[in-house]
């Protein structure tokens, strides 16, 4: 049960970044002032990374403290809570603003602050010299604050604060280089698409209030978990609530059909891509589903829907990444694809597996993004892989670490990605018989995507670090990044390689650390799934076969991808030449985004103009102004009676008198 002891220090975890953000922001403003006298001044803002990294380190240390404290408690009592005050008690809605550190949030906190800290350190090198150095750290720290609120809040509304907060910071950071124009557009797109999800989130929360009368996450989870059965209406409402909440997750975690903002979000500085659009923010959808796992477990048809969406997204992302030339776009679509995996896991009821993949993905994708950033940094902003090549000689540290990340992403055996991906596929396979074999199909999609992943990852490595140097040697002088950037890469590389120990498969007869750690949170959902016969276990033999299959596919396609592209761009050109339509379709992410523009955005825009011009100006305002005009017309017309002639006045009077006589006689 939830612990009600007050652990006020919990507040310092999110507050430290918030304070850091405020200070960094103030430093930025001070710098702006200083630039009035010296346009090149960078003085006060140069302190910003120290503040920001300090805040992150502090938060990380506190997170570790919290983790250790939790570890010392009984598994069922692992929750530290602190309620600041009753945030809203208005109009029958009572919401506490409280923080809870339990196993799930502690995992998230550790990832956010840990990986976040590394990315902050990296960014202090990457962003050096930027005019908005201080601002950048203010935003970044603000993001971390919001993200921590998201994972620590005890109520759904608190989660929503973080939920929208991270969306805002994502907006600010994607549009960080707003002078260029297109980043601002990408930022707007990201915010609006997230808002679509957020609207769903809100509907979900209304339904939850209707069902449970509260938004306290623990209460909701416990209520569902301890319930024996549901009426049809309740079941329907729960399914709807789950569906709408998942809609929210689709927005934030870039799932089909709301994923198209994420590739565009690469307009932001690379550390942002690493932190927000790979490691943390985009995983908040996964967090939410796991957090409310009993609700989703009990919501019947929503779970397979999540699995389908996840698998579909994974396939779209993976196939699109195959043909991208922009190194960050490859990583972006890869992220979409990997998030799809996580939702496939959730849809299969594998909560712990999803979190496991979330953690390992945070390690290796952050690493890959930062590595890509290092490449871009060293290549003076060049992101087109067709203009890179052979960089392993110029930036060895980046190369080695990138390789580690790529291997983990490809799922090469024994690396972190291998275990986490395999666990997901195993769970999907285990659920296979449900819904007329639906999950076998989803498993197959997962396996295909794994193959694609291995292929595009090795293609990326090959194009970037191998082959001939395709850049212009006169203008570009590739160089290795400074230590402040490469050191985080190394740490992340180690994590990417070793991260698998968190969740070794059961066949190895070692405990699944993460699953056990999360058990207090996920048990309720698992119980419901078990009760509805959704929990299946694979035989050891089958599991070995799957592991072997996974390894074989990863190795095989990694090899194929590398060999096809190690010499340069020929393979890409060959493909584009031979299958132009397919290449174009894949390159444009199955043309979904451009279809949105045509089918949704354009008609809405036209509707808005229609309303503004035809309905509002012409019809409604026309009626208003028409009334005024009519009055004036009547006025002009009525003047004619007053023609100045005595005779006609007398005529009117006589007629009037007659009319009155007639009226009165008649009535």
């Amino acid at each position, binding site marked *: 049960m939830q612990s009600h002891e007050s652990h006020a220090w919990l507040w310092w975890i999110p507050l430290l970044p918030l304070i850091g953000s405020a200070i960094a922001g103030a430093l930025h403003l001070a710098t702006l002032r200083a630039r009035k006298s010296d346009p090149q001044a960078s003085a006060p803002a140069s302190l910003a990374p120290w503040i920001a990294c300090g805040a992150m380190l502090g938060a990380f240390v506190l997170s570790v403290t919290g983790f250790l404290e939790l570890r010392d408690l009984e598994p069922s009592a692992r929750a530290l809570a602190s309620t600041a005050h009753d945030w809203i008690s208005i109009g029958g809605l009572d919401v506490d603003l409280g923080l809870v550190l339990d196993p799930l949030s502690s995992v998230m906190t550790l990832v956010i602050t840990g990986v976040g800290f590394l990315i902050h350190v990296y960014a202090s090198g990457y962003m050096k010299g930027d005019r908005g150095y201080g601002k950048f750290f203010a935003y970044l720290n603000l993001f971390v604050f919001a993200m921590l609120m998201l994972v620590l809040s005890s109520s759904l509304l608190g989660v929503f604060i973080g939920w929208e907060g991270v969306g805002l910071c994502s907006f600010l950071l994607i549009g960080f280089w707003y002078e260029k124009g297109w980043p601002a557009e990408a930022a707007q797109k990201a915010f609006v698409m997230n808002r679509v999800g957020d609207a769903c989130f809100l509907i979900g929360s209304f339904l939850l209030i209707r069902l449970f009368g509260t938004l306290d996450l623990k209460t909701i989870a416990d209520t569902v978990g301890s319930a024996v059965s549901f009426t049809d209406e309740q079941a329907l409402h729960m399914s709807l609530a789950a569906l709408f909440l998942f809609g929210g997750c689709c927005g934030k975690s870039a799932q089909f059909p709301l994923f198209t903002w994420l590739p565009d979000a690469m307009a932001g500085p690379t550390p942002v891509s690493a932190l927000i659009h790979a490691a943390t923010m985009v995983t908040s959808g996964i967090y939410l589903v796991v957090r409310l796992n009993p609700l989703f477990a009990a919501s019947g048809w929503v779970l397979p829907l999540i699995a389908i969406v996840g698998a579909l997204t994974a396939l779209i992302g993976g196939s699109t990444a195959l043909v991208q030339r922009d190194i960050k776009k490859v990583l972006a679509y890869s992220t979409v694809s990997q998030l799809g995996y996580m939702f496939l896991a959730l849809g299969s009821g594998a909560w712990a597996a999803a979190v496991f993949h979330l953690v390992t993905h945070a390690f290796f994708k952050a690493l890959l993004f930062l590595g890509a950033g290092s490449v871009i940094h060293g290549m003076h902003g060049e992101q087109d892989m067709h203009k890179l090549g052979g960089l392993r000689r110029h930036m060895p540290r980046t190369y080695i670490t990138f390789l580690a990340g790529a291997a983990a992403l490809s799922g090469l055996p024994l690396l972190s990605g291998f275990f986490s991906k395999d666990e997901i596929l195993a769970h999907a396979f285990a659920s296979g018989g449900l819904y007329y074999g639906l999950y076998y199909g989803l498993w197959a999609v997962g396996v295909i995507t794994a193959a694609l992943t291995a292929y595009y990852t090795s293609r990326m490595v090959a194009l970037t670090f191998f082959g001939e140097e395709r850049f212009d040697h006169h203008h570009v002088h590739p160089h290795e990044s400074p230590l402040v950037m490469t050191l985080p890469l190394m740490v992340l590389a180690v994590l990417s390689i070793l991260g698998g120990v968190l969740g070794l498969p059961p066949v190895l007869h070692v405990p699944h650390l993460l699953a056990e750690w999360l058990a207090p949170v996920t048990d309720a959902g698992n119980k419901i799934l078990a009760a509805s016969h959704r929990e299946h276990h694979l035989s050891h033999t089958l599991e070995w076969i799957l592991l072997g299959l996974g390894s074989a596919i990863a190795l095989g396609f990694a090899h194929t991808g590398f060999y096809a592209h190690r010499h340069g761009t020929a393979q890409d050109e060959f493909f584009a030449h031979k299958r132009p339509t397919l290449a174009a379709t894949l390159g444009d992410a199955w043309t979904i985004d451009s279809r949105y523009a045509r089918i949704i955005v354009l008609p809405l825009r036209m509707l808005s103009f229609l309303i503004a011009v035809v309905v509002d100006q012409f019809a409604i305002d026309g009626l208003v102004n028409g009334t005024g005009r009519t009055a004036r017309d009547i006025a002009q017309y*009525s003047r004619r009676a007053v023609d100045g002639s005595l005779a006609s006045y007398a005529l009117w009077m006589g007629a009037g008198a007659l009319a009155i006589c007639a009226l009165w006689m008649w009535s």
Partner: protein
Amino acid sequence: MNAQDLLQMFDANALRALAPLIALALGLVLVLLVGVFPLGRAVRATLVVASLAASAVLHGNLLLGGETPGKVLAGTFESSSTTAMWGLVFVASTLFAWLYSVRYYEEDAPFKNEHDALMLATPIGMMLMAGARDLLVFFIGLELLSIPLYALAAFRRDRARSVEAGLKYFLLGAFAAGFFLYGSALVYATTGSLSLDTLADPAARAALGQPMALVGVALIAASVFFKVSVFPFHLWVPDVYEGAPTPVTALMATGTKAAGFAFLMSALVLLPASTASTVALIAVITMAAGNFGALAQTDVKRMLAYSGIAHAGTLLLGVAGAIHGDPSNGGAVQASLVYMAAYVATAAGAFGLLALLERDGGPTTLESLKGLAQRRPWVASALTLFMLSLGGIPATGGFLGKYLVFSVAVRSELTGFAIVGVLLSVVALGYYLRVIIALYMQSPEHDANIPAPRPASAATTLASIVCAALVLATGVLPGWLLELT
């Protein structure tokens, strides 16, 4: 009836009832007399003011001094607190008109004595009209009011428009008087009586239902409608108001209308309840005619003439309510009294300020008012106040009157007419706002052509201040006026 009886009719009560009229008559005679001697303006002015003041004091005494004389002179004239209040309204309207006339004619009106004498005659007529309990008395009052006004309207006899105004007013007025007389004759022929009180008897009321009597009543009503400018008897109003000297217009707009409505409210017995919806319909049409007519005007004086028609329509709605049976005793009379009291202050002030501006040169078109707020801020703000009061905006007396009159209509289940009425008053604001726009929000197109403002006379200033104060006082603290009525 012999001569002795006739003398006995003039008892103390009758004298008390007639004293306010006698005071004015004395003043009138004295003004005429001093005209023979070269005594100058001051004496004449003193006489006018003194007689008006005396009349007001006597009215005040009747209003506040406990018992009123009631019906006197063989029941042909009534002096009640209501007629006393009406009397005060008449005196006020005459006083304002006279004050605004003091400097108005400087160049072209040599017969100032006659002017003032004629002006003093009008309130006597009004008082007779308000107090009349007999159609003959009313007729005498009507003519005592009208004949001087015919002359006054044409007082600037060198100006074609003034003469035209006088002639139109005179001919149509005489025409309407003919209606009245013939109507009275028909009523007399059917019922055998001209006394309003006798006509209220059940037997007479039954006789009034006969077609011939109804025609007679309709003709009487038509003639009164003419005086108060009700559709379709209103067509003379714009021309006459525009052509007449502005102070006279003020008197016509306020005093004549008030007297007409005073009579209408006391002669309700003539109108059977079945006429209520007809009267309400006429009222609404009148409001429409006035408001739409005004909307088309560019000359502010003419616009105010049309606005006066609309106000007559509003008041007539109250009359219709009273005919229909207002469940609140005396509510309709109170409403029309308050309405007219506020209207007298407002319209007199508005016309008076136009009289002042006319002296700056030329007609008072909207064009000439542009930017006045910069040249004459006080005049502009007072004019704005009057416009808002005419429009019935709260914090002005106009609102109170409008509220009360529409209350009568709503109470008498004439809500539909009331709704049309209030919507028409939105049209009214349309043109009142145009004046304010010209005053405050537009600048003159040719600065050079604007004559320098001439200082206002003390009388004008005084009258304007009093009018504005009355408008505000009735609007903000209406209690006293409601108590009085």
